[in-house]
Every structure is written in structure tokens, then in C-alpha cells.
């Protein structure tokens, strides 16, 4: 028992959310008689949810900064239809279409960011207006029609890595990516530990670190195996690669850069942030703009997956993204939340959806179950906080973002001994 405790940072609840996800996967794996963890299904899971998860990345930053964005679904739809029309009518190549979409997202984001940051209208209202505005623009521009996109654009939402090199029975590029990731994780883990030790921080014993890295590596390798051995012509899907890239990028931005710190600072206490020299208006503007760019990207990926852009694309996406963020431990009041947590929250919803579909549970019952899960996850978090226990969020952000920084464990062990000073 003590060994397990040490492994998970003195506290088995630390990975509560990840455990919930793993438990869910195992549950469905058993219930569906092994269909859940197959190459095909994992690809479905990624392809069918990548755009929601991409929205969740932008949304968590918006929510950390203390805002909300209700317009992302409509923006995705508007960008999607504009790009589809531009490609069809102006004969743009696919990459020019993507650039146009991102630029349009940036312009829309600047529009919303201007009202939120510089005029001071609550984001709830600005983006509620945006939700109607851009939905209407989508249907106006597209005349409520469904506009198809060419094959090469579809690669964005439904493509796979090419098969190169010798026929090994695996998708070679996927295998290489997997191995490179494992190498990276192990080196970074060990180097972080060494550096922390040099600075005189308390580090966990070597076996703890080793087991941890071994577990993470095993998980990556298993996923690599599944993705590399799907139907010929398939691999880690392109939306999945985009998503992983964005998670790493935004995870880094939010936890390791000055702008990331500023987002948390503005959401945590805007006045204190301003008095520390943070330009909160600029931060708010950038967060809203970034969200719209990601919404544009999500819209284009969905159009690629759907082979066409339609008048009701993106309906309710904002709510799926917001749900993912809150399941992932963000606080309504801002200042709290992590990119990784939100992705896990989104995956919990995605696995639930997928598993229930595999079991043939109807859409009505699925909605009911998802609603209850959202409520339960947040209630659990709130209950824990009210009991003075660290929240899932806290555990998550520490557990995941400092995984290559072992002194965190020692600190948390010590933390348990500190009273909540009255």
C-alpha cells in the first residue's frame, strides 16, 4: 500500500480523473467484448472527437481567464462554409483554404476580443451574440446549402499518415512517432529529476521515477501498437496528430510561458495581476482571439471529416467543449484549470459516448448518462474542496504538469500536514 502511495505522489486520488478514464475504458472493453480497444475504434474515437477536444483546449484558456465562449460552434460553422465556398468558387488549393480559415478565425476572434477586452462587455453576452451572428452568417453565405470540399482538403479531417518504407506489418511512421515520444518522455523525466536534485529539491526515490516512466512508456507503446496495426492505409489519424500537437503546444504555453502565467493571473485575481504589471486587456483579447482561431481549425477539420460543410455544423459544440473543461477540473470563477485536464475530461465524455454507442444504447439514454456524469464529476470536485482535501484539479495539474519534476511529491506529502489556517 505504501509503495502505491509513493508511486502516485503520496496520494492515490492524485490521478482520480485518469483512473476514472481508465476504469471507463476497461468497463466498456469488457462490456463490448473487446471491441473498445481495437485499432478501428480508437481511430473513430480520435477522428470523431478531435474537433471537440481542440475546442476544449481554447475553451479552458478562456475559462481560466474568467470568461466563457458560447460562439465556438457557430464560428466553426461559419469558417467551414467560407472555406468550402472559397475552395469551390476560387479554386484555392487546400492549404490556402486552411490559411484563409485560420485568418478568418483570427478576424472573428479580434472582433469578439475587442468587445470583451476593450469595451468591457461580459464574454457571455458578446459570444451569445456571436453564436447567433455567425450561425446566421453561415446560412447566409452558404444559402443554407451543404457545400462539398475536394478530396485533398478531406485529408485534414479523415486522413492518415502515408505508408512509407518496407512493409513491416505496421504503419512505419506511427511506430517511429511512438518510439520518439517514449524516448523524449524518458529523457525529459530523467533530466528533470537530475536538475531538481542539483538544485537541492527533494526528489522521489529512483524506483518510483523509473516505475512511473515505465508505466507512461507502456501506455504510449500500447497506443502506438494499436494505431500502427489498423487496416492497411490507416495510422494515427491526421486529426489525432493535430490534436496531440496542439495539446503539447498549449500545455507548454499555459504552464511554462509568461503569457500562460498571465492568463492564470488575470483569471485568479485581475486586480492583483494588473498591479503586478500584467496588461489584462491584452490577455483577454488574446484569449478570445485564440479561441476563435481554434474554432476555425475545428470547423475545418470537421468539414474535412464530413466531406462537406453544412448549415447546422457545430450546433451544441460549445456545450460539449465547456462540459469537457469543467469535467477536467476548471472553476467557473476562473484561475483554475489545465489543458491536459480538459482533454481528459473531453476523453471521458468521448469514451462514454463511444462505448454507449457500441452497446447500442439510444441517443436519449446517452444524453441522460452524460448529463449525470458531468454533474457527478463537478460535484465530486466541489465536495472534495469543501472537505479541505485537494481538488482533482489541483491533483491533476500537479500530478501531470510536474511529472518530470519529482520534488512535487515530497511537497504534497508535506502539504497534508499543514492545517487550513483559520
Amino acid at each position, binding site marked *: 500500500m505504501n509503495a502505491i502511495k509513493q508511486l502516485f505522489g503520496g496520494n492515490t486520488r492524485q490521478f482520480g480523473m485518469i483512473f476514472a478514464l481508465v476504469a471507463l475504458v476497461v468497463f466498456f472493453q469488457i462490456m463490448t467484448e473487446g471491441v473498445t480497444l481495437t485499432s*478501428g475504434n480508437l481511430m473513430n474515437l480520435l477522428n470523431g472527437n478531435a474537433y471537440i477536444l481542440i475546442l476544449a483546449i481554447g475553451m479552458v484558456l478562456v475559462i481560466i481567464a474568467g470568461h466563457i465562449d458560447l460562439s465556438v460552434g457557430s464560428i466553426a460553422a461559419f469558417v467551414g462554409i467560407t472555406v468550402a465556398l472559397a475552395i469551390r468558387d476560387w479554386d484555392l488549393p487546400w492549404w490556402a483554404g486552411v490559411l484563409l480559415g485560420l485568418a478568418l478565425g483570427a478576424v472573428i476572434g479580434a472582433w469578439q476580443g475587442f468587445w470583451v477586452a476593450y469595451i468591457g462587455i461580459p464574454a457571455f453576452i458578446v459570444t451569445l451574440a456571436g453564436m447567433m451572428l455567425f450561425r446566421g452568417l453561415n446560412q447566409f453565405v452558404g444559402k443554407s446549402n451543404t457545400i462539398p470540399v475536394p478530396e485533398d482538403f*478531406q485529408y485534414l479531417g479523415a486522413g492518415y499518415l502515408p505508408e512509407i518504407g518496407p512493409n513491416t506489418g505496421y504503419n512505419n511512421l506511427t*511506430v517511429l512517432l511512438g518510439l520518439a515520444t517514449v524516448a523524449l518522455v524518458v529523457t525529459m523525466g530523467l533530466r528533470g529529476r537530475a536538475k531538481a536534485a542539483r538544485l537541492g529539491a527533494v526528489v522521489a526515490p529512483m524506483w518510483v521515477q523509473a516505475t512511473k516512466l515505465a508505466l507512461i512508456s507502456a501506455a504510449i507503446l500500447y497506443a502506438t501498437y494499436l494505431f*500502427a496495426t489498423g*487496416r492497411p492505409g490507416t495510422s494515427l489519424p491526421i486529426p489525432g496528430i493535430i490534436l496531440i500537437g496542439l495539446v503539447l503546444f498549449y500545455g507548454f504555453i499555459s504552464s511554462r510561458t509568461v503569457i500562460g502565467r498571465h492568463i492564470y493571473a488575470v483569471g485568479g485575481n485581475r486586480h492583483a495581476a494588473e498591479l503586478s504589471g500584467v496588461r489584462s486587456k491584452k490577455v483577454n483579447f488574446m484569449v478570445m482571439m485564440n479561441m476563435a482561431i481554434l474554432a476555425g481549425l475545428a470547423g475545418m477539420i470537421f468539414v474535412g471529416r464530413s466531406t462537406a460543410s453544412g*448549415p*447546422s455544423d457545430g450546433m451544441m459544440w460549445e456545450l460539449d467543449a465547456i462540459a469537457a473543461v469543467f469535467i477536467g477540473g476548471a472553476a467557473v470563477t476562473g484561475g483554475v484549470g489545465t489543458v491536459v485536464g480538459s482533454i481528459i475530461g473531453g476523453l471521458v465524455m468521448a469514451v462514454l459516448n463511444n462505448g454507449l*454507442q457500441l452497446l*447500442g444504447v*439510444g441517443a436519449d439514454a446517452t444524453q441522460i448518462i452524460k448529463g449525470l456524469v458531468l454533474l457527478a464529476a463537478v460535484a465530486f470536485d466541489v465536495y472534495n474542496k469543501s472537505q479541505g482535501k485537494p481538488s482533482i484539479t489541483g491533483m491533476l495539474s500537479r500530478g501531470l504538469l510536474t511529472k518530470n519534476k519529482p520534488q512535487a511529491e515530497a511537497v504534497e506529502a508535506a502539504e497534508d500536514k499543514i492545517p487550513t489556517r483559520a
Partner: protein
Amino acid sequence: MKIMGKATKFAAVTAIAALALTGCGRQDANTDAGAESSAAGFDQGATIGVALPQKTSENWVLAENLFNKDLKDAGFKADVQFANGGVAEQQNQINAMITKGAKVIIVGAIDGKQLGNQLKAAKEAGATIIAYDRLLLNTKDVDYYVAYDNFKVGQLQGQALLDGLKEKKGNGPYSIELLAGSPDDANAKVFFDGAMDVLQPKIDDGTLKVGSGQKTFEQAVTQGWKAENAQKRMDTILTGNYSGSKKLDGILSPNDTLARAALTSVKAAGKETPIVTGQDSEVESVKSIMKGVQYSTINKDTRALVEHATSMVKDLQQGKELEVNDTESYDNGVKTVPAYLLEPQIVTKANVKEAYVNDPVLGPITK
């Protein structure tokens, strides 16, 4: 890749080679993929996927029950799903059906243009695709289409409107309004075009007058087939164009749900009941026709459609050639889809009893 040193590159190649030797990679291609399953047939207990759109009308609920029953009776495992969450949900449902190894997937699409990649994956996994009620567009991965003849439905609706006006509203000219279905449903335009095929000459010669001036499909659409949207639009038109004692004689409505919404709106405005067309034979509308309120509906017996779809699945299972009766009309943009079309029937108060005499639900009501 550029940053990889020679040594790492070597290591990677070695690793892949080693993996290849272990032989636990993927099975070599084409064990079951791509094969035309219609020729070969498949297991009798196979899974059959049925992906239906949103639960917006009684007909779809009925179709769900019938598919579940008929497919099970025939010995198949039925997986019938509604996509209340929209296109994205339907895509995921079709993917899940593929994962479960469905041999035939019957698709009633929300938007027939947005399922290309899922259908492609389904074909590659060896499934046969039947478009149900709504054609799947811009994809080569659809094998059959089974539906009622929708252009015909439109024509019948247009004709019924004209007949009704002549019968009840004296001599023309008549003022009418047009309602169309949801723009993301490929059939909506077909219904509308069919109806206009009959009505347009009469509008041109002045017999019919569209009071609001909203004559195009884009102006007449009802987003998502939602009753509330149709009702709101009618409310606006009535206030704007039919103030005072101006009369509204007729409304072209593509289905029963919208027909009742339009009637509600007219009633609220205190106008005399106009001639209103419909479609789908919904219980409430059939009652309304009996009472002489709604003028007509279309009997596209869902039972017959589901029955035929099920018989197609049975034929596929046994490897038989499928019967089709239209190999020319349904060009989906990529290919001409072989179709089996059922004949729709117009129902007014005059023939309501005969029309539903064999219907277990509507039969008793109309007696």
C-alpha cells in the same frame, strides 16, 4: 525527422525491423475488406446497422420500432440509432456500427452530403450501404436507395392544394403561402420542386398569388423541420401581409408537423381555415383531416418502406440480386444510385377510410 541523428535513425529502422520479425503486426490486407458482400452473402445472425436522423416526427419513431422488430424477426442483430445530436453524432454512430461489424448499414441521413468518409470506411470494412428515405450525396460508397418517389410526393401535394382550393374556396384568384422543409435535407428541395412543378404555371397565370411574395425555396425553408420555426414564420407573414380582412386561402406544407404548425398560427391570427397540405400520415393530422381542418396528407406507409428495406437485407444475406425499379433518376453527384421507389398516395377526407384500412394505428381512428 531532420533532427534525428544517424544513430537514432538506425535505431528506429532496427526497431521497426525487429517488430516486423515478431510477426504480431497487422494481418495482411483484404481478408474481408472491399469484397462485394452482395454477391457472397453473409451470416444469418449478422449485425445490421440502422442510422436514423433526429427524432423529429412520428414516422421516424415508427421506423425505429419496425426496424427493430422486422430485423430481429428475420434473425439479424439490429442496431438502430437516432442522431439527436446532429451530423457529428450520426458520423460517430456509423463508425460504431462499422466497429461492431455491421454487414449492412441502412442510413437515413441528416445531411446526405456529410457522411462521405464514414461510408467509405464502411465500404472498406465490407458493409453494404442502403440509403433510406434520403439519398446519400457526393459519394460512390452507396449501393442502393429505397424511398418513396419524392418528386411525385411534391406533385401530389401541389395538385391537392389546387383541388382543395377549387373545392372549398370558390373561384380564384387565391392567395397562398409556401412552406418548405429543412435546407440540409436533400428531399426538402425535391418536395418543393415537385409541388412548384404543378403550382408555378398557376402562379404565372395569376390564379395563385403568394401574398408575402416569398416564392423561392430559400425563402420558404424551415430550418431543422422544426414546427416552431414554421409557426414563427407564418406568424410574421400573417401579421405583415394579411392584416385586417385579407384572406389566406391555402398553404403548401411539405409535411404534417409543419402543416399543423401553420394551422395553429392561422388560428391564432383569427383567420378562416385555409387549405393546407401535408405528408407522413401523422395521427394528429389524420384526425385533423377527419374533422375537415387540414386538407390533405400523403400516405407513405412507413411499414411498406421498412418492410422493403428489410427484404433487401434478407436478399443481401442470401447473396441474391436486388430488385430495383429506377436506375436512372438518382444521380448523387458521383454515381447514379440504383433505387427502388415506392408509390406515394394522396389522402383527403374523401379517401381517408380506404387509405388506412389496414393500418393498425390509423385504421381504428378513421373507422
